[in-house]
């Protein structure tokens, strides 16, 4: 009896503790998302999605001039992203950003205070690749933020958006935050939308660290696409 009481008290305490700390839902599935893409997928957003938040820090570590660090990492990450994606899917089609970017930018709600912004194709318009074919699924990468010790809520929780960044920047971890949508091109609806955060202990930054975090991100995204099926 006493044990049962203690157990109940523990459960209640846990509920209170969980209730106190803010918890977010970082993904959203469409109720009709029944089947994840298995062998072929199209991807878009890779031209503009990659952003480095501390360009001078990255430029210094990678020994690249500060002016070209954004372009360089963007190309490097996009290449790595595609290479990794090709390991998971037999056929990967790249759709240029320009195809999607002319659609209005919209907010997708993931949680009460979590909104992710991005361009989504219009209802009733099927997106075609350069060969004129309409892929069934398009993975739209809205943002891929690369930085150190970042927290995704600071970017996507509208209540925290205007918070001043702390004066002292730390660099314990290399962080990547990715917001993406799996788009059903046939029925023009978002099947799975999520914001994922990846942290990787930062020793001495090199290109292989960036390569590793992008690969981890891609692996996780493909897993999430499968686990998000309703």
């Amino acid at each position, binding site marked *: 009896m006493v044990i049962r009481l203690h157990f109940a008290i523990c459960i209640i305490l846990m509920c209170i503790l969980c209730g106190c700390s803010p918890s977010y839902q970082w993904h959203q599935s469409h*109720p*009709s998302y029944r089947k994840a893409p298995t062998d072929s997928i199209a991807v878009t957003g890779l031209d503009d999605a990659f952003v480095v938040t501390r360009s001078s820090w990255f430029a210094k570590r990678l020994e690249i001039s500060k002016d070209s660090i954004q372009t360089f990492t963007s190309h490097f990450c996009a290449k790595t992203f595609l290479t990794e994606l090709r390991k998971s899917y037999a056929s990967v089609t790249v759709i240029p950003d320009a195809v999607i970017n002319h659609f209005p930018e919209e907010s997708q709600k993931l949680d009460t205070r979590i909104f992710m912004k991005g361009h989504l194709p*219009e*209802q*009733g318009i099927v997106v075609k690749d350069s060969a004129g074919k309409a892929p069934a699924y398009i993975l739209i990468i809205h943002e891929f933020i690369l930085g150190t010790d970042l927290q995704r809520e600071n970017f996507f929780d509208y209540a925290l958006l205007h918070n001043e960044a702390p004066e002292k920047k730390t660099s314990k971890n290399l962080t990547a935050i990715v917001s993406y949508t799996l788009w059903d091109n046939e*029925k*023009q*609806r978002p099947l799975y939308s999520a914001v994922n955060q990846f942290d990787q202990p930062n020793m001495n930054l090199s290109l292989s660290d960036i390569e590793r975090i992008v690969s981890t991100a891609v692996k996780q995204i493909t897993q999430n696409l499968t686990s998000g099926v309703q």
Partner: protein
Amino acid sequence: MRHVILAALIFACSAFADNVFFHHHWTLWKDAEVLIWSADKNPAIDPKEFCLSLKRNNTGIGEPKCRLAGEWERDSIAMRYANWLVANMDGNVKAEHLRARHPAMVAKIQSVEDRLVLFIGEREGSIFAATFDENNVEPVAAGVFTGTKDKIALGDKIASAFFDGSAKRRLSKEERAKRLTEPDESYKEIPGFQGWASVAIGYSQAKIPLTPNNWYSSHINSRVRGYRITKDSVSLWNFIDDSDPQIAVYLGGTWYGFIGAELMYRYAYHEVKTDPQDTIYRELSYWGFHQHEVGLNVILSKTYTPIKWFKATPFAFIGFQYSFFVEDIGLKDNHKKPSKAYDVRIKFEDSYKGALVGFGSHFVFLNHYGLGLRAGISSRGRNIEEDPSPEAAAEPTTIGSSTIDCFVNLGLEYHFSM
């Protein structure tokens, strides 16, 4: 395996049977203009026949006018959305999943005003229908109906599924313009002053619930011997009955729905607890005290409006009161001359001053008519009107200087705001 086949059969049947996916509240206008919007060249229902279906189904709908939404059908954005809707409507989705996303489409739906838009689309032999109103950028109702060539039967089905309920009179242009300038009910400001008058019945007793009996037992069980003798006289409940009904009148108001004040008057009658074994009372016909109390309370409250026509205002109050006990005594007819003890019987103070504290709630219906429920504790003590004299210690103790009871009231209220 057999279960799976059975489930599949049930699912297949239900997929083609009539099924309303969702039906949210929307305003059904009387004498409405109904726009029938479809991506199909030959829509599954006929506008004229549908109007007759509406009238047959809902007699309160007046004289609706139905026509095809030509302007929507010529708009390529609206047509793309129409095709998209047909492809995406199924039993899994909620209204939010069918939201129109294109800004031009959103604007189009919001400019519907007091017309009713009925969307009709055909997919795989089933007819999908949805309705739109000006307040939502997503369908307010949607469903699927078995495909049929009989346009009248289909119109009847759709009319009964979506167009039931009471119809409202369409507003004139001026009324619509005025309504646009009116504040939204949800953001309505709390009136500056909200007043109420209340008549309540209640009950009071010395014992406060959840407290030990022995705090009160000596007072409650006490009896008056020889018109004045009790064990102690600290509480009036040593002399008179404590548990009696009471009536009360309250007149109060709150400012900005938060802080308020109220005047109160309460009345109760308490009989004196004469000792039945005391022969001296044989001459006595009745003996009791009318209790009159007037007081002033300060109130802190908060108003909740869960439904438009109902408000609940929980409040807490603290205040002070003056109590007056007016003696009512009479001898039996055959005892013309009272006993000596009768003449020197116990006398209470002219008035007592006390405090009261408690909580309660107003439940207001249709902004005016309310029920009030409250409970609290009130005390009566010495009413000190002048400084105590230096010989105060030598003076006899005040009778009833610690008379405490608790009360509960249920009142009928009338509320008004200014």
